[in-house]
């Protein structure tokens, strides 16, 4: 074999090929371990843990703490992480956060795991500040053995062997043990399983423990390669989403194959494709997300499920006159506030208001529609890019920003909106990464570290060069969009959005083309985000790619939920909170992680009541001054799983 190859290939070619293959298998094995944990948790609990990669990251930090800092021997440190810390973490997580979450609407489950993601990143930043360089040596250092002339690190070999062992262990667990059989049964039919008396709680605990152990193991194996960093490891494991998706989130063997293909493809890309920085970093780092996006396109259409108990948290909608008065009041308040602020704070206030407009896009999508977008910042960036590229004061800039962002939104949504909310969220995440890597960083767009100029719009000859006036202008835009959303909400579209959340099956059998309806909603939401981007570009009059990193979509989503994603006032509050967050993070650098932590916890606590903080605020004020005409919002009612089916269907519980 080797001899015949050398006849065609020169020795160094074989050597290169073998070393790329080994590298690919190393990544593939690590992805496979991470992905199988994700799949195991998802199939048994129906919670797709977006924080899976962040778990790997934190566990890698813990491993560093034990192994490098406390000088605990490698094997003991790994045992501590895998057998003590990861299970403890998983049990706490299961008990206090995740239990029962699989029964909640997809949007709630997603927001909660995004919240967990932020908490984990926050914890890492708080406990292991970025001021020192940390790394973990490979197992057996750089020692290697020779294979067809290529040096193969023992670490790589160990990783591949470990992943095979994990595969075997999972096979034994799922096929040869009682609880494993119950876990597999849970995949097929949870309801029936519970009727047969299997304990869903125990299955859920075990699956979280094993899932977290596998995440930790992947972290420990990858950390020597990636180094300790909050996001590299986190996103490397996000690549395992693609593998998991290839296995349709149910099949472990397919997941393994997907992971190996992904690992090898990435490694060969690094080895054989040469080009500019865009190709090198862009293509390589987008490979997993590209695969994720591609896989999502080929996931078969989900069937409409009948008889699901869907939860809904309806926020009452203020009537026309009240919302108009509140809108006017908001503009007046903003104008008064703007007149008292200094130059720096005026810019921040403008930012906050623009973020408020972003939150409005989430009110429509998440608050009313129940869909989660993890890439809203991408559409904001598209809007900002339009403003920068046009570099004009014409109000047409805003119109174009809306239209182009809406069109981009439709392009993302169209292929995946036939799927469920989870797939849409993942597609937006993948798309955001792709856009950032391949479009926004491209030379014809922003390039690396380039600053583009953007002008503020001028209306009727007034150019808004006074920032206070521009802030009031943004406030006016916010109010107009807000009132527009309320009109939609009160009308047929609002009704249909709720109907679609309550029962997609009924909507289908009544003749609603859900795909186009959802694409429409998603597209309008993207358009609003694009408008926000154009406004934001005008605040500072310049745009850089770094201002719109895709990761920002996550805290924005969480703050929207914390502030209250079902209401216009919640969007305003959310925008202000996000602005304050940015200010606080730059002022108190040490507290950056702590702030993430608070937002994450807030999101987890409030995700089940997306009416958010504004609701608490209104409730509090109403208690003090009961006569004030403040909006009332629906109170969430806990689902009673013990209730017989008939009763539950009649009274669609709220989860």
């Amino acid at each position, binding site marked *: 074999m080797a001899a015949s190859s050398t006849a065609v290939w020169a020795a160094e070619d074989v050597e290169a090929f073998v070393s790329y293959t080994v590298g690919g298998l190393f990544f593939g094995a690590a992805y496979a371990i991470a992905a199988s944990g994700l799949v195991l948790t998802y199939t048994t609990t129906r919670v797709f843990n977006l924080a899976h990669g962040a778990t790997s990251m934190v566990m890698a930090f813990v491993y560093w703490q034990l192994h490098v800092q406390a000088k605990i021997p490698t094997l003991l440190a790994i045992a501590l992480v895998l057998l003590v810390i990861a299970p403890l973490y998983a049990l706490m997580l299961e008990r206090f956060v995740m239990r029962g979450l699989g029964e909640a609407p997809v949007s709630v489950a997603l927001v909660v795991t995004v919240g967990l993601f932020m908490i984990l990143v926050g914890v890492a930043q708080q406990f292991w500040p970025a001021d020192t360089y940390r790394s973990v040596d490979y197992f057996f250092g750089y020692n290697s053995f020779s294979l067809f002339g290529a040096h193969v690190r023992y670490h790589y070999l160990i990783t591949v062997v470990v992943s095979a062992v994990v595969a075997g262990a999972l096979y034994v667990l799922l096929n040869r043990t009682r609880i494993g059989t119950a876990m597999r049964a849970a995949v097929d039919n949870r309801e*029936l399983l519970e009727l047969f008396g299997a304990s869903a709680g125990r299955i859920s605990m075990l699956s979280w423990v094993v899932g977290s152990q596998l995440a930790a193991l992947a972290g420990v194996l990858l950390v020597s390669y990636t180094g300790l960093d909050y996001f590299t490891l986190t996103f490397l494991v996000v690549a395992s989403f693609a593998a998991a998706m290839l296995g349709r989130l149910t099949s472990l063997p397919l997941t393994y194959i997907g992971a190996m293909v992904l690992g090898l493809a990435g490694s060969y890309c690094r080895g054989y494709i040469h080009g500019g920085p865009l190709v090198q970093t862009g293509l390589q780092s987008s490979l997993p997300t590209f695969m994720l996006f591609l896989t999502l396109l080929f996931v078969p259409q989900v069937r409409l499920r009948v*008889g699901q108990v869907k939860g*809904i948290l309806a926020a009452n909608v203020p009537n026309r006159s009240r919302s108009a008065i509140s809108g006017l009041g908001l503009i007046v308040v903003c104008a008064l506030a703007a007149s008292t602020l200094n130059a720096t704070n005026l810019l921040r206030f403008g930012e906050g208001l623009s973020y408020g407009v972003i939150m409005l896009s989430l009110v429509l999508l998440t608050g009313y529609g129940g869909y989660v977008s993890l890439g809203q910042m991408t559409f904001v960036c598209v809007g900002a890019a339009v403003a920068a590229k046009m570099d004009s004061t014409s109000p047409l800039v805003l119109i174009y920003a809306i239209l182009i962002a809406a069109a981009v939104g439709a392009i993302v949504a169209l292929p995946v909106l036939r799927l469920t909310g989870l797939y849409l969220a993942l597609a937006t995440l993948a798309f955001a990464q792709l856009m950032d890597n391949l479009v926004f960083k491209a030379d014809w767009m922003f390039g690396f570290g380039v600053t583009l100029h953007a002008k503020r719009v001028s209306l009727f000859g007034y150019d808004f060069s006074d920032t206070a006036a521009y802030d009031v202008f943004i406030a006016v835009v916010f109010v107009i969009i807000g009132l527009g959303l309320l009109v939609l909400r009160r009308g*047929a579209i609002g*009704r*249909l959005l709720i109907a679609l959340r309550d*029962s997609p099956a009924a909507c289908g059998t009544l*003749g609603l083309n859900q795909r186009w309806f959802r694409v429409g909603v998603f597209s309008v939401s993207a358009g609003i985000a694009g408008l926000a981007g154009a406004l934001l570009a005008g605040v500072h009059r310049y745009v850089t790619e770094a201002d719109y990193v895709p990761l920002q979509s996550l805290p924005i989503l969480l703050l929207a939920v914390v502030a209250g994603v079902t209401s216009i006032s919640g969007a305003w509050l959310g925008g202000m909170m996000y602005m304050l967050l940015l200010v606080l993070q730059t002022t108190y650098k040490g507290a950056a992680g702590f702030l993430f932590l608070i937002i994450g916890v807030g999101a987890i606590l409030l995700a089940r009541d997306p009416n958010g903080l504004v609701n608490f605020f209104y409730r509090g004020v109403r208690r003090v001054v009961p006569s004030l005409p403040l909006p009332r919002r629906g109170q969430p009612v806990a689902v009673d799983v013990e209730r017989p*089916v008939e009763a539950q*269907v009649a009274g669609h519980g709220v989860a």
Partner: protein
Amino acid sequence: MALLDVVGATVKFGGITAVNDATFSVDGGSITGLIGPNGAGKTTLFNVITGLQPATSGRVRFKGRDVTKATVNSRAKMGMARTFQRLEAFGSLTVRENIQAARDIYAGPRGWFSLARDPKIDELIETVGLHRYVDQRADSVPTGVARLLEIARALAIQPDLLLLDEPSSGLDEAETESFGELLVHLASEGRAVLMVEHDMDLVMSVCHLIHVLEFGKVIATGTPDEIRSNKKVQAAYLGFGDDDDMPVPDDIAAEAEAIVGHHVHHIDERPRPGALEFPGAEMQNEITMQIPAVGGER
């Protein structure tokens, strides 16, 4: 030509055949009953007709067109509407808004921005008799009312074929009687009704034609009188046998009595398909365990 033709419809869930080569048709302006023991495949058949469940093989023709591959919503647009055995009312909307939402869907995007009041909504509320509940949230009304609401909502898209999945469960005797009148009224308007129903008195009194389903197969078709005297149906429903040592559950006995016209005391121990032996039930998301299959539990 019949309004709806189901030809050789077969649905397999893994190794289980839920619907087995079912063939029948429904004529315009008629009320057709679809009866059979639990787990016979009635709801699955409804799902096949409306497109929620793709058939493993077989065809569905509606108004002369083959709709086997058509989407759920396009079938609805062609004039098919249904209710659900496990309610699918829009729980967070009021009863009126539920019907309004259906009208919105019927009107299409152009209608969404119209400010005109739709007189059809009040008409439907009147027809079905929901006026007492119009402003209540659909998740707070009694089950029987929610079933009527689903019928009103289905009628809102002006279907030519109305599929009703156990519409009378949750209704009391008086309500069932007026519901029967409603069905007759609907049929008199030229609408076809296909109904899965366990209330045999209702089925026998309003249906023009009855199809009996057992093990996913149509085992008999005929008028109520023909079905009553059909030996195969009696056997299917009751499993008459020699060893009369299993007491008959009351609800089954009542159903059986309505068919055969005399009280049934005992049944044999022949195993019957019940929810426990029927993993396909999960696909329809109906866990019909409360009624043990006839003779199935030991």
